């Protein structure tokens, strides 16, 4: 007889049982990301995922980049929780852009990109993720490069405070360099903080306002197109 409830079945279903698993919680997203990755590869597309805290200057960087590059050099997918303000700004600068509104979600996930694949015609796709230093880093989109932005006004130690994103980045862009003279921002401290979590990161410093350092970013984009 069953010791728990007195029923007649010796091996009752409701016996406590431990199921040992070893399942990756993000398997579903990773699987779609993998499919996206193949799609990009098959279509000769390089996808770049831009991530940063809100207001670090992702859209401003892409506005200037759009004005610099010839028409149809790249397409942009931009994620925000609400509004299509960023898409509107980018359109005005000449970019071919589509807004993804994520509503309650604070990051883009691979399925949101999968739905927009038909929009991508150019060899370069730049994805502006939702402004957030934590969440986007856990969700691969199938991109070939992760780029993290860090503005000088955020202080030097963000990489250590939010290590996951900066750890994974292939390129780290220090933005708003034009503001350095007005801040107590210490470049050495900032680089130390970056290298603690990502010793091999490529780091560039630029201003979308004055154009200082933009060439290094364009070089990076051109390299992405060559591979």
């Amino acid at each position, binding site marked *: 007889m069953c010791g728990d409830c007195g029923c007649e079945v010796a091996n009752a279903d409701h016996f406590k049982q431990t199921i040992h698993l070893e399942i990756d*919680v993000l398997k579903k997203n990773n699987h779609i990301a993998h499919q996206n990755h193949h799609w990009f590869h098959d279509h000769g597309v390089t996808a770049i995922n831009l991530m940063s805290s809100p207001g670090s200057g992702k859209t401003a960087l892409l506005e200037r980049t759009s004005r610099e590059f010839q028409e149809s050099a790249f397409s942009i997918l931009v994620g925000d929780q609400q509004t299509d303000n960023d898409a509107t700004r980018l359109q005005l600068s000449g970019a071919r852009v589509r807004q993804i509104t994520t509503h309650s979600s604070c*990051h883009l996930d691979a399925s949101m990109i999968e739905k927009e694949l038909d929009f991508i015609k150019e060899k370069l796709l730049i994805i502006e993720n939702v402004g957030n230093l934590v969440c986007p880093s*856990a969700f691969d989109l199938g991109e070939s490069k992760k780029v993290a932005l860090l503005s000088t006004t955020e202080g030097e130690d963000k990489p250590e405070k939010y290590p996951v*994103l900066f750890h994974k980045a292939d390129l780290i862009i220090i933005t708003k360099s034009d503001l350095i003279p007005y801040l107590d921002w210490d470049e050495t401290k900032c680089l130390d903080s970056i*290298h603690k979590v990502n010793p091999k990161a490529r780091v560039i410093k630029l201003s979308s306002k004055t154009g200082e350092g933009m060439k290094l970013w364009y070089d990076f984009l051109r390299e992405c197109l060559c591979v």
Partner: protein
Amino acid sequence: MHELSIAKAIVDSGIQHVKQGQKVLSIHIKVGVLSGVVKEALEFAFPEASQGTVFENSRLEVEKVALVLFCKKCHKLTRSEDIVILCQHCYDTEVEIKEGKEILIQKMEVE
């Protein structure tokens, strides 16, 4: 909130391993320090994510996993609660991440 998406993903992937009629008493999750998941935030988000599923009212156990680095130069292991990508023995940065990235469902107790 990030942990809500993670909590939903836990429910989605866990559900496939629960047979009909079974109830989940507890679920044991391992989160690495490099996963970006905050234990407390995940515990907070789980009840909402599990509402109306077999995980409703099940106990969530979150185990934190430290960062374990293998140094390619001196072949020693470094264990760290903080994210510092550096061998603590020879201070080289040529290290491989052995543990600390995972978000895993380790086991479930069902009845």
